[in-house]
């Protein structure tokens, strides 16, 4: 079932988008390993216990820099529910694809012996 380049990229992108779409509906809302650890060391959670609904992992923070991203937490700030999440995830996948292909082309072209 070897695929040619075009089919391979297309299949890869479709599978990635499907995973992203399923993730919007099914992904766990529990904090990740680092956030959970932050809740534990700040006394908001037991090591093996459940995470608090309103826990704040960032309370342990010592840094000062703050940055507002355009699509925080993989959602559109102006849009509630799944639609914003779906748009955000598709934008993310396409953008990642463009950035990575672009960067690879730049690097490969940079060596000046690209095989046409």
């Amino acid at each position: 079932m070897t695929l040619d380049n075009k089919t391979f990229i297309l299949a890869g992108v479709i599978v990635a988008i499907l995973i992203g779409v399923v993730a919007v509906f099914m992904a766990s809302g529990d904090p990740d390993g680092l956030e959970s650890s932050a809740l534990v060391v700040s006394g908001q959670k037991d090591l093996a216990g459940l995470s608090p609904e309103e826990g704040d992992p960032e309370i342990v923070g010592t840094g000062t820099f703050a940055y507002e991203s355009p699509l925080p937490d993989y959602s559109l700030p102006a849009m509630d529910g799944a639609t914003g999440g779906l748009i955000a995830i598709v934008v993310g996948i396409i953008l990642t694809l463009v950035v990575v292909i672009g960067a690879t082309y730049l690097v490969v072209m940079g060596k000046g012996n690209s095989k046409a």
Partner: protein
Amino acid sequence: MHIPDAFIPLPQAAVYWIIALIFLALAVKWARSEMNEDKIPMIAVLAAGIFALQSFNLPVSMGTSGHLVGGALAAIVLGSPFAAVFILTLVLIVQAIIFGDGGITTLGANIINMGVIGGFVGFYSYKGILKAIKNPFVSAGIAAWLACFIPALACAVEMAIAGTFPLAPGLVAMGLYHAIIGVIEGIVTGIVIYVLYRARPDLVDSSVRGAA
């Protein structure tokens, strides 16, 4: 384990940035000599897939969730730890700037943990395990577990240096959660490498082809 801005003071964040930039320069040097246009489809599919899989948080019990990171995956498929540095750096930049997943000042530390440490641990443990058990997909799975667990411990040490986590409780919590999250990393990595090998054996590193 994307470290947010608040977790590392600026002077320390700058040190991690400098180290990350050194490895990024080495990764660009690697890509310039080892990559060519034929490999672009595999790089593209790996990047899109890693971004999507990173958005899929699975519950791992104890009030915690986790997802694939992909350092071992990229390194094993493309045959170099620098492939992980290259791809993970770009994925992490998109995540930080567009989605606020992982900080801007802490991007250097995140590149070191997930790209550099994940990539090197994943790649070299894969090489070693493959010699012992001969099956590239199982070897990749075990290596991917290590490539999740070891960076988590490194992250706990960075948090201790930053004064964000106390050292011992931080190591215990990060180690425990990522020992479980690593099982996801291992299973998904083994399966994805098998699927990529079946779809395009020519674009998968010869160590996988030779042993499969």
